[in-house]
């Protein structure tokens, strides 16, 4: 849109895929280079636009998983009836190009400021923007007490698993595996509920900052549970994704 370009708001840029990492059987991270990309804040997302030969266009939003200052990475989950995710997860190769614009969002953002503990709650691929915060935290040497409560269907569905097994100081990672668990699993094995939150989350009196990302149902369950624990609703920042793949 010419007006947007004139005002310097958001401009579509050409991005080139420079690397791809298969995170799990259904999830891939694409590392992108885009001339004119101005950098991002941890937790922000970008819009991707694909254009078919006939001119048909499809736009989707994806969270940025890389830390500010690192090569730009987005993590995409394959949705079987999606229009865009099958292409990005299964087809795209190094050197392929598509359009993106961003960064977008000033709400679901953590810059590393403040002393309040940080509670991150992720359902499935909702871990992506939280991973940007975790990576940013490590990059700036933050000692802010931080907990990631991460719900996955199975151990094989855990995205960034190896990296999360080597957490930086002051970061605790708590997994719950809702559908199947490896033999000998001693961790949580159910959906997030009030009792689980009571064990993992700080008391509301410590004033934690909260970021929750996942499906609508997941976000509602986690946020409602924290409000019941006395967390002020406006201290809880949420990002929901629908199956718009």
């Amino acid at each position: 849109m010419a007006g947007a370009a004139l005002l310097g708001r958001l401009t579509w840029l050409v991005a080139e895929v420079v690397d791809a990492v298969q995170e799990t059987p259904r999830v891939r991270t694409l590392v992108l280079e885009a001339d004119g990309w101005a950098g991002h804040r941890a937790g922000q997302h970008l819009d991707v636009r694909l254009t078919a030969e006939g001119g048909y266009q499809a736009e989707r939003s994806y969270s940025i998983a890389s830390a500010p200052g690192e090569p730009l990475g987005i993590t995409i989950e394959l949705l079987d009836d999606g229009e865009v995710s099958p292409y990005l997860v299964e087809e795209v190769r190094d050197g392929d190009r598509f359009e993106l614009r961003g960064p977008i969002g000033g709400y679901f953002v953590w810059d590393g400021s403040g002393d309040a503990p940080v509670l991150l709650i992720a359902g499935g691929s909702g871990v992506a923007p939280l991973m940007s915060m975790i990576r940013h935290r490590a990059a700036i040497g933050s000692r802010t007490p931080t907990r990631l409560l991460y719900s996955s269907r199975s151990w094989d569905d855990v995205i960034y698993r190896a990296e999360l097994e080597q957490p930086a100081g002051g970061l605790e990672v708590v997994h719950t595996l809702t559908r199947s668990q490896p033999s000998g699993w001693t961790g949580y094995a159910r959906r997030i509920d009030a009792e689980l939150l009571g064990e993992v989350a700080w008391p509301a009196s410590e004033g934690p900052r909260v970021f929750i990302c996942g499906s609508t149902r997941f976000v509602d369950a986690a946020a409602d549970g924290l409000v019941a624990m006395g967390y002020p609703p406006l201290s809880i920042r949420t990002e929901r994704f629908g199956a718009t793949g």
Partner: protein
Amino acid sequence: MKTEAMKVDGNAIGGLLIEIFGTDVTGSIGVCGSCGAEDYVATLEVYMRAPGVVGRCKTCGAVMIRIVRSETRTWLDLSGTRTIEIVES
């Protein structure tokens, strides 16, 4: 695609809202014209069915924002929103 499948939240239309308002408003507080609830624009329940976008209050479900776009025009209906407090970040 099923209607329910196209339900997202206000974060997902952050780019579209930047085009309209010229700045990010996902972290701005909006007040629902129906129930008076105050919440972040990011928490709107958003239904996307091109070319239209509808955002509903998370508390009462009333429509707070409608956006329809064509190549050359953007039609914005905020009649269901009492106020939005935009703070430059």
